């Protein structure tokens, strides 16, 4: 151990900073990529059980090696470039889809100290990056030189632009209630147990955000961009092998990110729901106290439950028609958010509401 410290101190400070930051990024990225891989397994298993069938069960014990088998298979497949497709754009699109989905994790706070970059404008950063995600889809659809891909890209672009507005308004509500754009401070503003989290006073915004999140990630029932019964597979119909795998990873990384953001903004991130409910002495007990108190495990649990809602929705609802999607985004969600923002403005002016104690 002493050897390592001396070696570490011998490094120039710039290199130390670089290594430290790369280490932090890896500490988030490696578990994230693993969870993305196993989210595909979880999705197939959960939807399988909902539809009274087994799901993957052949590769490894209980099918647990299925995602690895899928990954290896995709890696060794040929990536086919369609005739007359734009080569550079075609290969750039999957990278543009995955990049923002991973970069947004930089500001997500796991607990009070564990965050890669403690940005003051963290919420804006997240909004900017989620709005960048549409480029991967559009460029993929355009560069594929295929009508199905292009139709999928157009649908997806219109849908993401429409739902981004409602999503942005919902987040305006969160920053009005917390008085900060810093995600860590937003969580700290919700201190004090289950009933002090923002999901209760901002319930309409919470619902709008969650549903818009499903629409933003192009998941069922909003998956007209893929729409396998109408346009084969939408924007990524021409992609094969690892290029397709990148789109797949991007979709699941986006799901995890939206779920994590919902956990941070509306259900108190790493905060425990039992603060203020159970007597304070309980939190001093050796192991149970730690489990019941604030901590990363609560953040992970909340994120996992929101991810479960994504899968549940997919197994439950038929796909929306395109005009219904547009109506829901523009004519229902945006008015709902605007009305609740004015209600919240009045509440903030007269200092009523649970978040001003």
């Amino acid at each position, binding site marked *: 151990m002493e050897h390592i410290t001396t070696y570490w101190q011998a490094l120039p400070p710039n290199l130390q900073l670089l290594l430290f930051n790369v280490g932090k990024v890896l500490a988030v990225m490696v578990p994230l990529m693993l969870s993305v891989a196993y989210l595909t397994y979880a999705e197939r298993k959960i939807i399988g059980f909902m539809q009274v069938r087994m799901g993957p069960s052949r590769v490894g014990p209980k099918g647990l090696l299925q995602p690895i088998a899928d990954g290896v298979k995709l890696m060794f497949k040929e990536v086919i470039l369609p005739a007359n497709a734009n080569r550079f754009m075609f290969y750039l699109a999957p990278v543009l889809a995955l990049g923002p989905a991973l970069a947004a994790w930089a500001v997500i706070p796991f607990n009070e100290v564990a965050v890669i970059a403690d940005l*003051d*404008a963290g919420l804006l950063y997240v*909004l*900017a990056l989620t*709005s960048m995600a549409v*480029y991967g889809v559009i460029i993929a659809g*355009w560069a594929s030189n295929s009508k199905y891909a292009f139709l999928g890209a157009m649908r997806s672009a219109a849908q993401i*632009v429409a739902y*981004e507005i409602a999503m942005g308004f919902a987040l305006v509500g969160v920053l009005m209630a917390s008085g900060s754009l810093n995600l860590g401070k937003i969580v700290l503003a919700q201190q004090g147990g289950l009933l002090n989290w923002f999901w209760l006073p901002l319930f309409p915004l919470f619902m709008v955000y969650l549903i818009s999140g499903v629409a933003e990630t192009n998941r069922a029932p909003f998956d007209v961009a893929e729409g396998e019964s109408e346009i084969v597979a939408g924007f990524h119909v021409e992609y094969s092998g690892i290029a397709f795998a990148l789109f797949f990873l991007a979709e699941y990384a986006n799901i995890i990110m939206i779920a994590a953001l919902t956990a941070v903004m509306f259900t108190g991130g790493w905060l425990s729901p039992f603060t203020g409910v159970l007597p304070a002495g309980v939190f001093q007990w050796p192991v149970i106290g730690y489990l019941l108190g604030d901590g990363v495990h609560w953040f992970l649990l909340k994120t996992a439950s929101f991810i479960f809602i994504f899968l549940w929705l997919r197994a439950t609802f038929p796909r929306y028609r395109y005009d219904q999607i547009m109506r829901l985004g523009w004519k229902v969600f945006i008015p709902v958010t605007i009305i609740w923002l004015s209600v919240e403005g009045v509440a903030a002016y007269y200092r009523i509401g649970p978040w001003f104690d």
Partner: protein
Amino acid sequence: MSFELFVFYLFAAIMLFAAFRVITVRNPVHAALFLVLAFASSSALWLLLEAEFLAITLILVYVGAVLVLFLFVVMMLDINLTPLREGFIRYLPVAVLIAIVMVAQMVMVLGPQRFGLDQMPAPPRQPATYSNTEELGLLLYTEYLYPFEIAALILLVAIIAAIALTMRKRPETKYQNPGEQVTVKKQERLRIVKMDSE
């Protein structure tokens, strides 16, 4: 050369290159994508100026929304590019003249006589706790409250005007009323006929 200066020149070079390519590439979709690159690098320059709010807003508004709609339209256009390029040589002298006049104006207005370091010294470095977003918010909602509200009102009027101009009821378009759709009852749609099996 310090690292910061290196980053500045890097992004400035990328931005100039992208802006140049916006007007020179043949394919309009590529032009729009180069515009995205130009916006992204100018946002990086703003980050260097410690204006993170403006930098992120530029990405959010222009890259995330405006240019997506641009691309949306440009990709669906089916334009033949050759007629657009005719007469390039013929109009070149006029274009060069206008360009020279514009550059001269910009040099005269923004040149070192007015914006040199002796006229406008570099602002002091802010401490790490400085929040650009908070400072902007404070200024916008105190000192510049009325100009801000007036600008917001003008934008609102523009939005309403744009919607009013494009919204016209065409008789041949078929609409569905989802409110009516969900109130439909089984009795209105379904008729069960009892008949013997054949």
